């Protein structure tokens, strides 16, 4: 198991400094759009998850050495996903944003001022730190007049959904899938890896099924509500090897169903892709 105390210190330090969990070049987070206004009632909230996710496996490999090499963490800001990885992430975000706009939603985006949600603190059980940081995030939303947040990934959505357990939080939070109109069909046949948070915590499993109007190969023991396993991603900051074991097992069972896999979360994408025998796509890439 990694040294979580040092990880906590690093996270808290960076969140205090620039409201991001690691030292990152914010240009990576914001590069996907220039068209959206900087302020408005309703924002699309990326929490920089799709943009940074390709770097997570690298960060996670580094974590066992974090306490010894802590002085190197500022170098993380020099790391960049590859162009292909960034293009893919940007494509997902643009598709979501366009689909929301097409539904007549007047969307704003906070660009450089968009804070990270604090999901990692919550998921690692740093609840005091999460509470303190989340209040700061809420402060930022209030300052910017945000009344409605549209999330695009499960970890961010879950973190925001939990804010009101810690303090009074008066912003409407809705996931993009609840609002978009998918385009018709796709000739390919896919199987699906559901996000654990969407499925068993946020009550969005059926919403995704309803919007994915393509044929899915399912098996009660692999893609059922109670039987579909985690990708292993949330375990990576704690123990990368264990996370990989979970990912391999999950990818193997999904590979038996189809060579095309749909995922709903950027972490599932990066965790399962190296082990899945076939092509992995985000739901937004396919249905929007």
């Amino acid at each position, binding site marked *: *198991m990694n040294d*979580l*105390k040092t990880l*906590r210190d690093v996270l808290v330090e960076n969140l205090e400094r620039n409201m991001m969990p690691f030292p990152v070049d914010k240009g990576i987070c914001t590069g996907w759009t220039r068209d959206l206004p900087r302020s408005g009632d309703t924002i699309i909230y990326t929490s920089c998850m799709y943009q940074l996710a390709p770097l997570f496996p690298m960060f996670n490999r580094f974590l066992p050495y974090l306490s010894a090499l802590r002085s190197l963490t500022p170098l993380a800001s020099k790391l960049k996903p590859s162009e292909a990885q960034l293009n893919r992430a940007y494509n997902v975000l643009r598709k979501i944003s366009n689909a929301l706009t097409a539904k007549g939603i007047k969307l704003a985006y906070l660009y450089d001022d968009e804070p990270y949600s604090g999901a990692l603190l*919550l*998921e*690692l*059980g*740093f*609840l*005091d730190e999460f509470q303190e940081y989340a209040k700061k995030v809420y402060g930022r939303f209030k300052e910017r007049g945000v009344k409605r947040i549209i999330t695009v990934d499960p970890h961010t959505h879950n973190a925001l959904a939990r804010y009101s357990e810690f303090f009074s939080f008066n912003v409407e939070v809705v996931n993009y899938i609840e609002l978009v109109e998918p385009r018709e069909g796709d000739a390919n046949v896919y199987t699906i890896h559901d996000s*654990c*948070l969407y*499925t*068993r*915590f946020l009550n969005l499993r059926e919403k995704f099924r309803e919007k994915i109007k393509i044929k899915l190969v399912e098996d*009660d*023991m692999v893609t059922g*509500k*109670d*039987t*579909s*396993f*985690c990708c*292993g*991603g*949330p*375990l990576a900051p*704690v*123990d990368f090897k*264990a*996370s990989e*074991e*979970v990912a391999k*097992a*999950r990818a193997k069972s999904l590979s038996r169903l189809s060579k095309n896999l749909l995922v709903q979360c950027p972490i599932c994408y990066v965790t399962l892709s190296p082990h899945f025998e076939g092509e992995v796509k985000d739901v937004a890439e396919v249905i929007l």
Partner: protein
Amino acid sequence: MSWETAVERAINNNVPRVYKILREHPYILDLAKELREAKLKVLENLEYYVDKTLDSVKRAGGHGYLASSPEEAREIVEKIVGKGKTVVMGKSMVAYEAGIREFLIRQGNEVWETDLGEFLIQLANQPPSHIIAPAIHLTKEEVEKLLKQKIGGVHEGSTHEELVTMVRQFLREKFVKADVGITGANAVASDTGTIALIENEGNIRFSSISPTVHIAITGVDKIVPTLADATKEVLVQSAFAGLYPPTYVNFTSGPSSTADIEMKRISPAHGPKEFHLILLDNGRIKASKDPVLREALLCIRCGRCHLHCPVYRALGVKWGDPPFTGPMGAMWSYVVYNDPKPAMYCAHSGNCKEVCPMRINIPRVLEYIKWKGNRQKA
């Protein structure tokens, strides 16, 4: 063959069976709901129910004890058993938690686990890997090798049936000559002092009936208000374990007795002369006072959460402090060993909370334990 293969087989055998049982016997879900309420009632006032249970055991002619720690439990057992005895044990996680078997062996007793899975891991000198299937990690081929080495008489390519027959022959003699039988208890009724035990092998019935002394050791969390609630617990536990209907349900209220000669009540008759119930605290009473950890104490040890958990599937016995593995084990490792590390391995997949008969929000309890652990470290 690997853990991956063994657990995959277990999942594919067990999970569909549980769904089928619940479909065919929908009343189980109602019983589970009622059981949760009954158990909560006890956990909200646990010390009162411990006293009430011990009184009831006494009224039924037995001896009841509250052991605050494993050491105390061992001392009580030592006083009852003594030295140089033959002891047969039915499966008990709490006996494992209290280190009873090893302790009695060190005291110069001959001790045999009689549940097949427990017997195998006793021979292999390994910890249990699952609460109701402790030898889930051993394949048939490995069992064959183990038995050949340790008790002999097993030929290569033996069938499952032949392996079980060998163990049956070996243990039969131990049952007959045993002085003391030690079992756990799936539930303890506080109104009557009755313990309830479910099983399929018949070893628990044998262990609790054949020797002249029966010791049941279990956690205080197993107390339920009434004998009717204890009945619900055994039915729900066996259904969610995928073993419904259970082959045997045993209720024991005190030692055996008869009044068939001149209506004078004497003990023993065919069963034991003495019945002892040891209730182990070991952190449970403290946990019952914490509204989040209290939820962990609702666990009825059906083992269902294990087979729906991606982390257990990948890590198996490496996850948790034996005998507590899997999602329930991550909660219990903290309750009884004050170890928050297993909770850190919860990836909050949430399958466990969907399938738990007691509707324990296991990921939430584990998140709380993570928080407690992080604060300890800080």
